């Protein structure tokens, strides 16, 4: 009984979609847009945050050594650094290397260095903490290294690290806030669109009731269609995300070279299932509300 009613209703939902595709189409599109926006917003947010974390982590600590330091002294110092900071990598950059690097960095402007009588750059030791240490941890390490002999100055991009920390905090608050606001507005639009689609079929609901259908029996096909529309909408959103991932992101990839090291945002199966579930629920619930509105009159 239940099974054959379910089968009959599914058949009807398909037939309705076929005979009057517009209302369903609009619901599907609206749900798809809402989910697509929500999803890419969430992905973008997650990506931005992991980018910030990775930048924070990349924050290497540069020990500027006294210009008078000899290579041997420097190497001994390097050994001490590696010993005292087991969670960090460290390399020694001598003065000549530093100058070569600067030339490369300057590119066309390297000529500005030609007038130098002597190499003004001090030797440095570059310390890179492993893992993704918090900015606070980086600060402590820097303070400890500061105490070592021959270390003239420790630089760890304090100013930038602070900015990143603040940016990360604001992304959390602002991003989540606006995600919720946008999703709320999108849901409102979805609910009203489904209501409009049901409104276009209000005569049908009236007639069904007059012929003796219970509220539940009238509602059923709408719920089924709503869930189907939600699934299709979520599928469309997923498809668009996948397409964007495949065709659009690679094109802006070169602009993202600086983000190398951060895993590109990935759509996992669990995310996809979650999205499909949300879509179906939204369609179902939206239809429920819409039909309830017209059942009452």
């Amino acid at each position, binding site marked *: 009984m239940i099974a054959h009613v379910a089968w009959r209703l599914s058949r009807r939902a398909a037939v309705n979609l076929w005979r*009057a595709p517009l209302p369903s189409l609009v619901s599907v599109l609206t749900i798809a847009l809402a989910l697509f926006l929500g999803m890419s917003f969430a992905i973008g947010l997650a990506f931005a945050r992991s980018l910030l974390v990775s930048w924070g982590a990349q924050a290497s600590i540069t020990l500027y050594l006294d210009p008078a330091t000899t290579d041997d002294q420097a190497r001994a110092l390097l050994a001490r650094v590696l010993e005292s900071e087991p969670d960090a990598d460290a390399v020694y950059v001598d003065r000549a290397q530093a100058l070569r690097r600067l030339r490369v960095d300057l590119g066309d402007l390297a000529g500005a260095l030609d007038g130098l009588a002597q190499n003004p750059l001090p030797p440095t030791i570059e310390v890179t903490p492993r893992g993704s240490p918090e900015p606070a941890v980086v600060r402590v390490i820097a303070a400890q290294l500061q105490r070592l002999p021959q270390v003239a100055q420790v630089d760890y991009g304090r100013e930038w690290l602070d900015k990143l920390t603040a940016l990360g905090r604001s992304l959390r608050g602002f991003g989540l806030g606006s995600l919720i606001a946008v999703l709320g507005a999108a849901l409102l639009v979805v609910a009203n669109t489904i209501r409009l689609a049901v409104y276009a079929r209000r005569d049908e609901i009236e007639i069904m009731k*007059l*012929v*003796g*259908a219970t509220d539940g029996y009238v509602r059923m096909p709408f719920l089924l269609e709503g869930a189907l529309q939600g699934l299709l909408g979520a599928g469309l959103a997923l498809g668009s995300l996948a397409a964007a991932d495949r065709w659009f992101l690679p094109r802006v990839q070169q602009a993202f070279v600086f983000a190398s090291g951060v895993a590109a945002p990935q759509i996992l199966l669990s995310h996809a299932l979650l999205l499909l579930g949300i879509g179906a629920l939204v369609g179902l619930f939206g239809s429920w509300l819409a039909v309830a509105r017209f059942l009452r009159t």
Partner: protein
Amino acid sequence: MIQLFHVSKCYPGDAPVLDDVTLRIEKGEFVWLTGPSGAGKSTLLKLLFCADQPTSGQILVGGRNVGRLTQAGVPFLRRNIGVVFQDFKLLENRTVVENVGYALEVLGASDSEIRERALRRLEQVGLKHKATSLPLRLSGGEQQRVAIARALVNEPTILLADEPTGNLDPGLTDSILQLLFDANARGTTVVVATHDRGLLSRYHKRTIALDKGKVTSDA
């Protein structure tokens, strides 16, 4: 079977549509309901299957007080009442046979039973060949006959027909009325609202005349 006690129906700002109507229709009776346009015939029928509530008065249908029905009770009342609506009220996006079958579908009948019984009724109203058409593709008279087939398909205990032959030619009118008489003979209580004096004089039955919401004659 059907009883009305001092039933009135008013819409705000207008003269009452039904005005203190008291009536009793026995089980198995066949009744003509007549009266000029706007007399309140359709409104009276609507009250019987709970499509509207009276402003005052009590209505008993099959022993139940219609005014006291719960939201959930209404569909079950309606399943025992076949209605031919004046404006047909067919589902636009369903075929003729699906429309007729819908009255059975809500009862939970099986697909094959629905189809078989719907087609039999369609044959009786002469529309078997239009079974898979959509209602909008039918002529006025054909739509009316689909509405009649739907009202009859689940052998209701009460049949309310609002102007069921307004769009039918005399030959069809007679054959459709014969269907109503047959149903009546099988025990169905039938109330037919009509303007057609020809019918009233050809088929002598109890005739209730309404005018401006009042019962003016009952014989």
